[in-house]
């Protein structure tokens, strides 16, 4: 059942430019590094930071920003596809359970984000090679710094999807989302318990894996909360 729903959800995002967004996001992140290294390559060499180690961290400095923005847009997009002609009443009157409808939306966004993250890995690797960075290519480090933020951002995905599906008017979820994006900009100054800090992988113990674990656990919690609320609500 859930497989069928996910397939229909992917059908519904046809011709909506969502795939384009999923490509644009990671490309944008790497493009910022193109500017960065294009302008300051000599400075990096001078500082002795022209290496894969610093490059990977430079890329990942902009990942949270793009990731959160992506989540906000995708969540509101998924909601607006059903809201547009109130297709909820048609969808929920089908022989499907409400939790699977919610899970399907969540998974669809999740898969799009995984796709975007894979692209981010490939794009960063490609540009890194193009730059001719010194030393061996740290594949594991690269993959880690691309995928860790995604897992750490799951609570934000849960939150955004929930409020996007609950509010008819997407103004509110977008506002919260933009607020989150701004927060992620100043992640360094935020306390560790704020979910918008987590995708930056920064915490006082300097252990990125901690953010991933927190993301998974709290993400699951927020997901369940949102889903139960969605099930409880009447369809207008």
């Amino acid at each position, binding site marked *: 059942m859930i497989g069928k729903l996910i397939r229909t959800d992917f*059908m519904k995002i046809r011709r909506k430019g969502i795939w384009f967004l999923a490509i644009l996001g990671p490309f944008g992140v790497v493009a910022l590094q193109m500017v960065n290294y294009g302008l300051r390559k000599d400075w990096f060499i001078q500082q002795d930071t022209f290496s894969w180690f610093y490059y990977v961290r430079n890329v990942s400095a902009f990942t949270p920003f793009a990731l959160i923005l992506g989540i906000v847009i995708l969540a509101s997009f998924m909601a607006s596809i059903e809201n547009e*002609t*109130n*297709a909820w009443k048609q969808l929920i*009157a089908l*022989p*499907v359970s409400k939790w699977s409808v919610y899970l399907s939306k969540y998974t669809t966004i999740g898969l799009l984000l995984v796709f975007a993250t894979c692209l981010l890995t490939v794009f960063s690797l490609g540009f890194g090679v193009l730059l001719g960075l010194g030393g061996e290519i740290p594949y594991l480090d690269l993959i880690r710094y691309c995928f860790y933020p995604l897992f750490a951002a799951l609570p934000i995905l849960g939150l955004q999807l929930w409020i996007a599906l609950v509010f008819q008017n997407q103004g509110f979820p977008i506002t919260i989302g933009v607020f989150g994006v701004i927060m992620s900009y100043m992640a360094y100054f935020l306390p560790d318990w704020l979910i918008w800090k987590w995708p930056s992988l920064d915490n006082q113990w300097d252990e990125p894996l901690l953010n991933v674990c927190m993301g998974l656990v709290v993400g699951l919690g927020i997901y369940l909360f949102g889903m139960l609320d969605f099930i409880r609500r*009447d*369809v207008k």
Partner: protein
Amino acid sequence: MEYIVETKKITKRFGKEYAVEALDLKIPKGEIYGFLGPNGAGKTTTIRMLLGLMRPTLGTIQIFGKDLKRERIEVLKKVGSLVENPSYYPHLTAYENLEALRKIYGISKKRIDEVLEIVSLLDVANKKVKGFSLGMKQRLGIAASLLNSPELLILDEPTNGLDPSGIIEIRNLIKSLSVEEGMTILISSHLLSEIDQIANNVGIISKGKLIFQDSIDVMRKQSQNKISFKVDDCEKVWRFLISSGIKADFSEDTISMLEQNDENVATVVRLLVENGFSIYRVEEEKRSLEDTFLQMTAEERVI
């Protein structure tokens, strides 16, 4: 009689307002049930509860003899519906819209062409729904509701926005579905004329309460013309008529009888005159089905 839909005292409350109150809906198998009521009477809320979109505040719903709350998915497999304005994905074609539903039902792709044929949209199957007229969107909605070959079809104001020929087409379609496929159909409308032409059973809802539920023939009987008498002492006259074996009703200052042939009216008049009652007026009250409906849904007089 076997009922496909049977609700027991379903009630829906929004805050302090009762949108639907203690509704006992009974929809017999294979019949076309007309669900009538003015705008805002609670028709759509009731239909949403029947589809499991809204949870009743109180009461239970049984469809196909199954409890909707417990076996919602099983029930919905055999229900087709079109609630209020049709829902569709404007950026997808008509075919893709139905495909998105077909995948979930898990039925054969052939059925999409079949239902598009039924609502005569086959030639625009690959056009985006965005560009459809309201009537075409409505037909697409009906096609979607027929996709799973349902045993119970729930149509909420299905002729909204259709032109006269479209309305006749849909009406004929609904009739043929009932006759040929033995489908049970619930069709809601605020227009009695609409229901009068297709339904065998009627339920009338007003201000959230079911005020009439029976076959349309019973309703027609209630709408028969009446002969009313204005006389000097109503109660006395009424007693006299009853004791003479003549059926009559009395209310305030009139005596009324269901339509009689001329001979019978003459007999009653003669009887009254011979027995010394004064007759001020004898009037014929013409009532259409529409009048009965309006009277039923009027605030003061709840039957």
